[in-house]
C-alpha cells in the first residue's frame, strides 16, 4: 500500500493505519491491486464501442497497429473516448439539475419544497422573459419557470437561454463556431450518436461536438442546477463553518451526507432539526444529531447552512473508518461502491436513496420529491437507533479540524464589493466593478477558478493547496468549488487570516472587502457561478471574457464531470489547466488540437501540467500576457 503518497496529509496517515488494524480495505489497497494501469487506456487508444472490438491501436504513430478493425485510427478513437467522457459528465450534471427543477415544480407554500429566495425566482423569470415576473403569484410563477426549465433539456429548437448572460463578443464566437448548445439532452444524445461505430471519424469535428455538449452542461444543466437550487433553498451568503474529519463528534449521532443533490440533503437537514429526533437521540445516550457533509452535497449544505464538512472525495472511506458514523446517506455521483462493504466492518449503516444510483450492499430507501421529508425522517430514525450499536473501542476521530468561511455566491460577492464602492461616485451598487477595477489597476494580477476532484495518481490535496498558496502569494485571487474547495478549507485558506499568505495587493483587497483570498463558491454545478462572475466582469469592460486575465484549474481531477467542466470553461474563453493528463496522448493530433489549435477558434485552450509549481509559473505568464494585450 503506497501510503507514502499521503505524506502531505496528517489525517490520512492515522486513518489508514487504523484501516489496516481494522482489516478494512481502502482505495489505496485497490489501487495497488490494479498494478500498473493499462498503457492503451491511459493513452486513450483502446476502443470497445462495437463487438468487432475491443481494438487497440498503437499510441506511437507509425508503429504497430494503426487502425481498429473498422479502420478508425488513433485520432478518431481518442476523440471518441474523450467525447464520451464529456457526455457522461454533462449527463450527470444535467440529470442532477433536472431533479432540482422537478422539485421546484413540486413546490407549494406548505412545503417541504418551498420557494426560499423569491427575489431570485422573479429575477430569473424576468431574465427568461416571463411576463409579469414581478407580479405573478409566487407558486404559479415557480411552476411556470420550472416548466420552462424542463424545456431546456429537450426543446426541439433554439439554444440554451442562459447563453444570453455572456457578452455579445462571446456569443458571436459560439455562433460562428457552432458550439452554442441546443437542448441539453439533445447534445448528449447526438454526441453519443456521433461517436457510435461508423459515424464521425473527423477528430476535429468530434472535438467541437464534444465542446458543444460540455457547453450544454455549463450554460445549461449546471447553471440551471445552481440557480434553481438557490431559488429553492436560498442563495448562499457568507458564513462560518468548519472542516476535516475532526468535525465528527464522538458524543453525537453522526450522519454523513455524501453525494450531490441538495434535494435529499435539505430534507435531511430539516428532519434533523426535529426536536422529537433530538430527544430520541438523547434517550439513546447521544448529545444530539450531527450532520456532516462530504463532496458536493457537503458543499451545498455548507454554503447554505454552514453544515460542517467532514472531508472531500478521497476521505469518504476515512470517514467511516473513524468508527463514529451511524449512517452514510448518499444520493448520486462520486460515491465509492466500496462503501457498503466498508461500513459493514463497523456499525455504520449505508443508505443509498436514488434510483439512479442504487448501490448494492446494505440499505436502499427510495427518495422522491413526493415523499422527501418522510424519507428523511426515516433515515434520521435509522441513524439514531443505530447509535447504541457503536463500538467505542473502534472509535478514533482524528483531532483535526479547521475553521472556514463559506457561502460566496455571486450575490454574496457583489454584496461584499458594494462595501468598497464610494457612494458619492458615479459607480453603481450591485456590480462587480470594484473587482474589475483592482484587476485592471494591477492591484491583483488576475483571477483563478480552482476546481475538481482528488485522484490517487497524485498526492491528495497537495496540488490543490500548492497551486492556491502560490497563486495568492502572487496576487491572484482564487475562487474554489467542489473537492478543491474542501482542500482549501482544510488548509485554512478560506479564512480572513489567510490574507497573511497573500501578496501585498491581494492582502489589501482582502482587508478592504473583508474576504478570504480564496472564496468558496460551492459545489461542482456551482462552477456556473464562476462562469457568471467572469462574464459579469467582461461585461463591465464590454469585452470577450477570453481577454481577461483569468484561468481555470483542475489540479487533481478524476471524473467525467470534470472533463465536461473543462470543456465548457475552455468553450467560455478561459484557458484551463489540468494537473492530471487526460487519456488523449495517444493522438498527438488531438492533443495539439486541445492544447494549441483550438486557441485559434475558441480564444482559449487546455494546458496539461502535472507539477503544480510549474503550472503556477505557466499561469503567471498566461495572466501577464493577457494583461499586456489589454494594455493594463
Amino acid at each position, binding site marked *: 500500500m503506497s501510503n507514502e503518497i499521503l505524506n502531505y496529509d496528517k489525517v490520512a496517515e492515522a486513518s489508514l493505519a487504523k484501516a489496516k488494524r481494522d482489516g478494512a480495505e481502502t482505495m489505496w489497497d485497490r489501487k495497488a491491486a490494479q498494478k500498473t494501469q493499462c498503457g492503451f487506456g491511459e493513452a486513450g487508444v483502446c476502443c470497445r464501442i462495437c463487438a468487432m472490438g475491443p481494438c487497440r491501436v498503437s499510441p506511437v504513430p507509425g508503429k504497430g497497429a494503426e487502425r481498429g478493425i473498422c479502420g478508425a485510427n488513433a485520432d478518431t478513437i481518442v476523440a471518441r473516448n474523450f467525447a464520451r467522457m464529456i457526455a457522461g459528465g454533462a449527463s450527470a450534471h444535467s440529470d442532477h439539475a433536472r431533479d432540482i427543477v422537478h422539485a421546484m415544480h413540486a413546490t407549494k407554500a406548505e412545503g417541504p419544497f418551498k420557494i426560499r429566495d423569491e427575489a431570485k425566482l422573479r429575477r430569473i423569470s424576468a431574465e427568461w422573459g416571463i411576463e409579469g415576473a414581478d407580479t405573478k403569484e409566487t407558486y404559479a410563477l415557480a411552476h411556470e419557470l420550472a416548466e420552462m426549465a424542463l424545456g431546456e433539456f429537450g426543446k426541439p429548437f433554439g439554444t440554451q437561454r442562459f447563453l444570453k448572460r455572456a457578452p455579445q463578443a462571446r456569443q458571436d464566437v459560439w455562433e460562428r463556431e457552432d458550439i452554442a448548445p441546443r437542448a441539453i439532452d439533445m447534445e448528449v444524445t447526438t454526441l453519443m450518436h456521433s461517436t457510435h461505430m461508423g459515424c464521425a471519424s473527423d477528430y476535429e469535428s468530434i472535438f467541437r461536438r464534444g465542446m458543444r455538449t460540455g457547453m450544454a452542461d455549463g450554460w445549461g444543466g449546471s447553471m440551471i442546477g445552481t440557480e434553481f437550487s438557490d431559488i429553492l433553498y436560498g442563495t448562499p451568503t457568507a458564513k462560518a463553518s468548519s472542516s476535516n474529519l475532526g468535525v465528527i463528534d464522538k458524543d453525537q449521532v453522526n450522519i454523513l451526507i455524501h453525494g450531490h443533490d441538495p434535494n435529499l440533503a435539505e430534507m435531511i437537514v430539516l428532519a434533523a432539526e426535529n426536536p422529537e429526533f433530538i430527544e430520541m437521540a438523547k434517550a439513546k445516550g447521544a448529545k444530539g444529531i450531527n450532520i456532516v457533509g462530504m463532496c458536493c452535497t457537503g458543499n451545498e449544505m455548507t454554503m447554505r447552512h454552514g453544515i460542517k464538512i467532514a472531508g472531500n472525495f478521497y476521505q469518504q472511506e476515512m470517514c467511516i473508518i473513524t468508527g463514529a458514523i451511524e449512517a452514510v446517506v448518499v444520493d448520486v455521483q462520486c460515491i465509492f461502491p466500496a462503501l457498503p462493504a466498508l461500513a459493514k466492518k463497523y456499525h455504520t449503516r449505508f443508505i443509498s436513496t436514488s434510483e439512479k444510483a442504487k448501490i448494492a450492499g446494505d440499505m436502499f430507501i427510495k427518495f422522491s420529491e413526493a415523499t422527501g421529508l418522510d424519507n428523511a425522517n426515516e433515515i434520521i430514525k435509522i441513524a439514531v437507533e443505530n447509535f447504541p450499536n457503536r463500538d467505542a473501542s473502534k472509535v478514533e476521530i482524528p483531532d483535526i479540524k479547521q475553521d472556514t468561511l463559506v457561502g460566496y455566491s455571486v450575490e454574496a460577492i457583489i454584496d461584499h464589493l458594494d462595501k468598497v464602492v*464610494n457612494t458619492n461616485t458615479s459607480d453603481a451598487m450591485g456590480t462587480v466593478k470594484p473587482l474589475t*477595477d*483592482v484587476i485592471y*489597476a494591477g*492591484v491583483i*494580477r488576475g483571477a483563478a477558478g480552482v476546481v475538481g476532484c482528488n485522484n490517487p495518481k497524485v498526492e491528495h490535496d497537495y496540488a490543490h493547496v500548492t497551486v492556491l498558496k502560490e497563486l495568492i502569494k502572487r496576487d491572484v485571487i482564487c475562487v474554489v468549488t467542489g473537492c478543491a474547495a474542501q482542500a482549501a478549507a482544510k488548509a485554512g485558506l478560506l479564512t480572513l487570516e489567510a490574507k497573511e499568505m497573500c*501578496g501585498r495587493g491581494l492582502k489589501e483587497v482582502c482587508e478592504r472587502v473583508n474576504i478570504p483570498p480564496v472564496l468558496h463558491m460551492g459545489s461542482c454545478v456551482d462552477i456556473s457561478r464562476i462562469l457568471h462572475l467572469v462574464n459579469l466582469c467582461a461585461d463591465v469592460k464590454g469585452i470577450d471574457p477570453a481577454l481577461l486575465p483569468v484561468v481555470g484549474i483542475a489540479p487533481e481531477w478524476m471524473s467525467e464531470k470534470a472533463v465536461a467542466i473543462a470543456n465548457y470553461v475552455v468553450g467560455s474563453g478561459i484557458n484551463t489547466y489540468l494537473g492530471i493528463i487526460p487519456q488523449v496522448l495517444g493522438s498527438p493530433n488531438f492533443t495539439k488540437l486541445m492544447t494549441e489549435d483550438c486557441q485559434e477558434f475558441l480564444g482559449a485552450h487546455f494546458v496539461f501540467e502535472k507539477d503544480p509549481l510549474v503550472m503556477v509559473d505557466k499561469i503567471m505568464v498566461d495572466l501577464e500576457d493577457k494583461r499586456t494585450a489589454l494594455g493594463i
Partner: protein
Amino acid sequence: MSLTDLIYAGSNAVAGLTEGAVNDAIEKYGESHAVGYPDTAYFLPIIYAATGVKIKTLGDLPAAVGILKSLITNKDDLGEALNAGLATAVGAEIIEAIRYLDGDPYAEDAGIGFVSDPIIRSLGVPLVTGDIPGIAVLLGESADPKTLAAIVKDYQEKGLLTFMVGNIIEQASEAGVKMGLDYRVIPLGHEVTSVIHVVSVAIRTALIFGAVEPGKLADFLAYTKERVPAFVNTFGPIDEVVVAVGAGAIALGFPVIADVEVPEVPGALMTQADHSKTVETSLESRDIKIKVTKIDVPVSVAAAFEGERVRKDT
C-alpha cells in the same frame, strides 16, 4: 500604460532627478557641507523614519539615493509599486532639502515649504481630539477655480486642515479663500516636490505623537494608515510623477481622489469628476465623520475661523 508602469515611469524620473541634484550639489559644495531642513529635530524626516539614518551632510546622500533606487524594482506587483511610491517621496525629500542649500527656496513663493516641528506640535492636540477631523492634500491646477474654492471652503468649514500644492494656490486665493495656519489652509508650494512637506508632517506626527521608532517603516505606515486621517485630491491632468507621488500616498494609507480618469482602485484611487461631490467622496473614502453638526448661519462657523481677525476696511 498600466498603473504600475505609470508609477515606475514617475518614480524612475524622480530617482534620476534626485541623483543628478545630489551629484551637482556635492560638486558645488563638497561632501562635508551640511544639509537639512530648518526647525526640525528629525534631519530629513522621511529618511530618518524609514531607515533610522540621520542625514547631516551632502556626503550622506548618495547612500540614500542608492536605497531609493533599490526600492524601484519595476516589477508588476502592487507591493513593489507602492515601494516605488515611497522611493519617490524619499527622492522628493532629498530634492527639496537640496533646494534649501541656497537659502529659503520659498522666500518668493506663496507657499511655506517645509513645515517646522513647532507647527506640527501645535497641530497635534486638535488632531488627536478629532478637532481637526482630517487632512486634505490638494494638488494641481483646476479647470474651474470657483468649484475649487468651494471645495477648500467646505473643508475649512468642516474644520479640516488643508494643504495646497500647485497653481490651485493662486486660483483659490483669487476666488476668496483665506489662507494661513490660522485658517487651516496651508499653501505649500508650486513644485510637485513640495507635496513632500505634508508627507513629512504625517511622518513626524508618528514620530512625535506616536513615538514610533525610527527605522521601523512598517510601523510608520501602520500609524499613518490608522491614525492620520489624510487624503489627496488632484485637480487637472496628472502626469507620471504625480501618479508616483500618489502611490506614495496610498502606501501611507491615504486615498487619492482625482478629477480626471484614472485606473481606479476602490478605496484607494478613484475618479470624481463632479467637484460638487469631491468633499463627500473624499470624506467617505477616508471614513471621516464630522463631529459638529453644521449650524445654519449665514457665515461659516468652524474652528478654522477661531484665529480670524476682523479687520476694518480702510
